[in-house]
């Protein structure tokens, strides 16, 4: 138990001296014939030594009292004993979130189709050496379907350019967000593989988290003490966070809120209550998932193809980020010409379906369906048939993960308040981009632009529901937390946002002072339902040395 201190050197000398005086006085009163004044053997060897350990014990008692006090721990979270805080909060069923390692799939590109064994200790390290991953099991890349006999056997397929490839599962060696690499991040294998050409992340890796710190844990304390039931907002949030540890933010819209439109779908257009919209943010930035999906030709002349998404495919998806020919190594995307959202509220066995009557009302819920039409300029459609011809494409789709699971959870019969229906929605996204010009003083070295980029994205993605604006000052302060006084951010900062409204339209917002969320209550859009998302790729940083520092 770390509460105990046994290091005598940490004791305060004045306090030890005071203890010595107290013990000497006590001994003097108890044994008047003993000389306990300074300089005597009794004082030097017996009383002073006893005073040392008396003071040590007093210190440890004070530490224990402090650590056992929720009030003290809350006031000084950084110095509170972690193990004791865990014990205190366990009484309220609040447990510290364990660290979690990022996981994902790595595509291994080979120059030849040869059987490629891989032991369970095979590692893949990013090119900059900052993050490493280990395969989750031993794998073998096999060259024929007949050779696939277990989950560890991965079929090597042909790839463009006369290359070959197969996919393995990996997990980060160190828990935390550092392992959240994006699709396309390249790796170096260790040990090296035969015929190795390249290795890269197939999709964004799932979000790793560091172990919850004591201040973060104490911040959740109120939620822990709350009744874990879908009743008031605090209790509902507590219940959700307990069962979905990755949940970052929750906003409940209910009776009387301007954003609540589901309870006004009646003859009189009056709010009747009984409905709750649960807006959630389960990730700092939307998860971009890559998959292969079949599209149907809808127009030969215009070369238009359509991807149809059921409600179970990428539930509540934000948008299709890219569409490319299957196995293409190209970057970019075919042009998406339309994105139409609909609704599927047909029965799901064992689940209560919330009342949603419009397509826009179902946007970003698990009941959303979508039809995304794009123009494939490469495929010759001459011999194809509209409505019949199909072709596979590599797509990338952005979503808030766990949406369907959250909906099932809150709507379950045992958990749902009998008089209420709940609709879980992904936070309405405002995709942000930011352009910075940062000046630095040469004599202090060039600032680490990647650190600045990481800090800025973390800061923006940490903005909670109900914050009405993303201020430029917040970004400037964040940059200065990296560069200190050794530089400055040139103003104005280029700050832009694209707000994807339910219903499909996009509202562009831009300002040099702050991005302020516009309110569209009839669509449920407000600061209580919108989240800012800033990905690293959308942060542009131009570093410039200062030619003359004015003093």
């Amino acid at each position: 138990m770390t509460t105990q201190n046994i290091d005598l050197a940490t004791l305060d000398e004045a306090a030890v001296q005071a203890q010595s005086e107290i013990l000497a006085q006590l001994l003097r009163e108890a044994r008047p014939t003993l000389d306990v004044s300074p300089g005597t053997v009794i004082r030097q060897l017996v009383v002073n030594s006893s005073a040392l350990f008396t003071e040590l014990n007093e210190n440890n008692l004070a530490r224990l009292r402090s650590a056992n006090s929720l009030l003290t721990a809350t006031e000084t979270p950084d110095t509170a004993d972690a193990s004791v805080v865990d014990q205190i909060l366990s009484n309220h069923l609040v447990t510290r979130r364990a660290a979690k390692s990022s996981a994902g799939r790595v595509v291994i590109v080979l120059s030849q189709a040869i059987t490629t064994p891989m032991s369970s200790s095979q590692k893949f390290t990013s090119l900059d050496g900052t993050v490493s991953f280990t395969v989750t099991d031993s794998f073998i890349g096999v060259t024929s379907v007949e050779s696939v006999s277990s989950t560890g056997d991965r079929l090597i397929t042909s790839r463009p350019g006369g290359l070959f490839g197969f996919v393995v599962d990996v997990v980060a060696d160190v828990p935390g967000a550092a392992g959240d690499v994006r699709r396309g991040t390249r790796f170096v294998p260790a040990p090296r593989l035969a015929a190795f050409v390249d290795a890269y992340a197939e999709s964004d890796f799932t979000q790793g988290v560091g172990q919850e710190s004591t201040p973060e844990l104490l911040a959740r304390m109120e939620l822990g003490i709350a009744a874990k039931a879908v009743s008031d907002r605090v209790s509902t949030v507590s219940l959700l966070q307990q069962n979905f540890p990755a949940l970052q933010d929750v906003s409940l819209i209910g009776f009387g809120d301007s954003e609540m439109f589901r309870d006004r779908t009646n003859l009189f257009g009056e709010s009747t209550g009984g409905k709750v919209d649960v807006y959630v943010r389960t990730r700092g930035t939307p998860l971009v998932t890559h998959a292969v999906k079949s599209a149907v030709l809808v127009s030969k002349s215009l070369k238009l193809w359509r991807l149809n998404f059921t409600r179970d495919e990428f539930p509540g998806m934000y948008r299709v980020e890219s569409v490319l020919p299957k196995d293409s190594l190209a970057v970019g995307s075919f042009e998406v010409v339309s994105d139409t959202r609909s609704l599927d509220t047909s029965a799901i066995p064992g689940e209560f379906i919330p009342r949603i009557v419009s397509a826009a009302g179902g946007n970003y819920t698990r009941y959303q369906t979508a039809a995304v039409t794009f123009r494939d300029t490469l495929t010759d459609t001459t011999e194809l048939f509209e409505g019949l011809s199909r072709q596979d494409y590599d797509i990338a789709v952005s979503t808030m993960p766990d949406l369907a699971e959250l909906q099932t959870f809150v709507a379950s019969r045992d958990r749902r308040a009998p008089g209420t229906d709940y609709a879980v929605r992904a936070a309405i996204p405002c995709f942000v981009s930011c352009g910075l010009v940062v000046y630095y003083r040469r004599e202090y070295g060039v600032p680490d632009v990647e650190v600045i980029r990481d800090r800025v994205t973390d800061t923006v993605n940490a903005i909670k529901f109900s914050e009405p604006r993303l201020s430029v000052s917040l970004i400037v302060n964040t940059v200065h937390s990296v560069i200190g006084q050794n530089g400055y951010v040139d103003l104005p900062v280029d700050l832009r946002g694209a707000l994807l409204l339910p219903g499909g339209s996009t509202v562009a917002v831009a300002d040099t002072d702050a991005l302020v969320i516009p309110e569209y209550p009839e669509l449920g859009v407000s600061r209580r339902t919108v989240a800012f998302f800033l990905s690293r790729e959308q942060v542009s940083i131009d570093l410039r040395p200062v030619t003359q520092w004015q003093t």
Partner: protein
Amino acid sequence: MTRDISIVQGLRPAGDTRVSFGFSADVGGQVVTGPQKAAQRFILLFMTEVGSVFGQPTFGTEFMSALHTGQIRTDVDVELYFMSAAADVLAFYRGLPDGSVPPDEMITAINLVEFALSPGYLLLRVSLTTAAGASREVLLPVTDTVGV
């Protein structure tokens, strides 16, 4: 009359009074009082390096520190540092609460009677006088890095 544990062996009113430290097996459990206690306290004070006792930053003298750091090399050095240490001991006694030390334990004068200095060896003969008029002479064998 108050008592202290006897830790300085060989302390006698007169004669060869070379002292040593320890809880002697022969006379274990003895206590001292009076001039003998005063002499014991003087020895403890004089031979404790000031600042070496946790919680008592001013207890001791600089004599042993000077000896350990090689600053005592000549007869003059011995006399100078002894006088300084003796002054510190007397100041300590003056700082004790009035009436806390009986006259036969209150040291009022400290004199270096004679000393023998040779490489690696220093012997001090010290005379202690109390407020009651009693005297004690002690021989302090200080063996250390003298003159190195």
